[in-house]
């Protein structure tokens, strides 16, 4: 564990006489190794280490009786701070329906999240409408319809060959006409470098003016999370993220990378395949997980 590794380092350093700033660097290498193992982007890790070093020197860790423990606390607190102090709820519209748009790479869990969110809204007495705007993946509409049926939430869809932008526009109209409180747009997975598909998201945004755009991201992602989150953010200025597959044993360093590059809050985590497996994001738990 990180604190034990720090203690070992400090113990061996004490043997050499006074601990110096250069010695702190050895413990910081341990922090770096831990962060990289946890899939934090190496550039993000670099910046993070510098801030931790500043704190360590500022707090005079070297004079502490328990420098290892103190350093772990600095690292942990710095992580919690970066991951987003406290929980950020979803923005609701003053005048319904609230429009929530889900975006992200292929297979990250958007369709599942759509159903999970719909289920939560339904339970809270805010009747949702799901919109099946993925016209590319085989049986994507059927997938959302099956999920909708299982939670008794209506799903708006159009026949094969329809334009996803039009589907979203009509879906929001439908939500308004039928007095739904929330309308959730499930879009197709796409690459951040697919210009045509990213432009489709621009057009959906223009056609529906979402109150909340949620970037859905797989927590098992590696270094590239910074790239894809950055590109999606640059394009859409999304307002929040959802991390999925949190029930895996991935350390989830992608969370830090996404936070660092977009500055947007992580609002939920997906913790399983069932429709009830959605939880609010807890920065302190995430920090502990990243540090292993």
């Amino acid at each position, binding site marked *: 564990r990180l604190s034990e590794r720090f203690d070992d380092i400090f113990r061996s350093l004490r043997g050499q006489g006074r601990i110096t700033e250069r010695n702190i660097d050895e413990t910081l290498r341990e922090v770096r190794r831990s962060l990289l*193992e946890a899939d934090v982007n190496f550039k993000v890790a670099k910046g993070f280490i510098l801030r931790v070093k500043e704190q360590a020197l500022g707090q005079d860790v070297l004079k502490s009786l328990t420098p290892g423990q103190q350093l772990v606390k600095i690292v942990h607190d710095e992580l919690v701070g970066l991951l987003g102090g406290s929980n950020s709820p979803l923005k609701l519209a003053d005048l319904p329906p609230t429009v929530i748009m889900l975006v992200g790479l292929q*297979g990250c869990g958007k369709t599942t999240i759509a159903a999970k969110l719909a289920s939560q809204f339904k339970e809270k007495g805010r009747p949702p409408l799901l919109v099946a705007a993925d016209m590319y993946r085989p049986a994507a509409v059927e997938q959302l319809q099956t999920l909708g049926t299982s939670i008794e939430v209506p799903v708006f869809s159009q026949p094969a060959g329809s334009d996803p932008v039009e589907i979203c526009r009509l879906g929001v109209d439908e939500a308004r006409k039928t007095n739904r409180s929330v309308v959730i747009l499930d879009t197709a997975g796409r690459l951040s470098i697919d210009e045509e598909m990213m432009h489709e998201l621009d057009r959906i945004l223009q056609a529906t003016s979402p109150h909340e755009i949620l970037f859905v991201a797989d927590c098992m992602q590696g*270094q590239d999370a910074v790239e894809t989150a950055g590109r999606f953010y640059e394009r859409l200025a999304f307002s929040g993220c959802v991390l999925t597959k949190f029930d895996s044993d991935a350390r989830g360093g992608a969370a830090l990378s996404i936070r660092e590059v977009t500055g947007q809050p992580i609002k939920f985590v997906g913790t399983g395949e069932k429709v009830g497996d959605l939880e609010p994001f807890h920065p302190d738990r995430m920090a502990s997980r990243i540090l292993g």
Partner: protein
Amino acid sequence: IVPIGTRLDDDAIDDIEAALIGADMGLETSTEIVDELRKRLRSEQLEDGPAGVMRVLEEQVAAMVALGEEGVLPLEGVLPGKPYVVLIVGVNGAGKTTTAGKLAKRYTDAGKKVVIAACDTFRAAAIPQLEIWAERAGADIVRAQHGADPAAVAFDALEAAKARGADVLLVDTAGRLHNKVNLMEELKKIRRSLAKHDLGAPHETLLVLDGTSGQNALIQAREFNQATELTGFALTKLDGTAKGGIVVALRREMDLPVKLIGVGEGVDDLQPFDGAAFAKALFA
């Protein structure tokens, strides 16, 4: 992506290591590659500075992921089994169903009779999704009702494939996290069902890895290999920005090759793995 001067100084080394880490090779593998690079540069005379260093680096990585004879997945000609059975496994959303569809098309294009087993009986619309792929590939599909026992479907599918004189049976399974004991037990059961036919099945067990995977892919590989002996990987979504360098770490640790790569969502977006091309793309 690696800016280097004509001498390999500390900054250049750091840049190279950063590029390797950024490609998801992980700290250990990246360090090993850089150390090896330093040794080679000392022992070899390089006349063309930065280009020379890049060439050595690419060759090194290509060598690390090279496919031996046994590493190549047979995609045509005489197959080592009738039916030749390929079990497709992996975590949720990695691209198993899509890869199964693409692979089926590869075999039907080569004149093979293909059967696909729909062993994801759990996820919403998993079977309809695979049915569309089977149709695109010109393959038969063996399915049961939603919620059926996947091991029973696997058994029946191999039975049907044998009876129909199929050349290939592709077994698509449900996405599962390797840290879920009951799901890994289910996978063992599916494998046992295939083995019951005494045909040497499964001849191939491919772990499908998302190209965006981080270090968790190492744990995935270890755990899936425990449940059902893997013969290789299929690395998907390489048409994106991720480099998939994790497979270099995987090869180093488990000596299992990447046999296929997914480069898109269309039925023809599947390629046999090419180490040299992979290494080149890594540093592009």
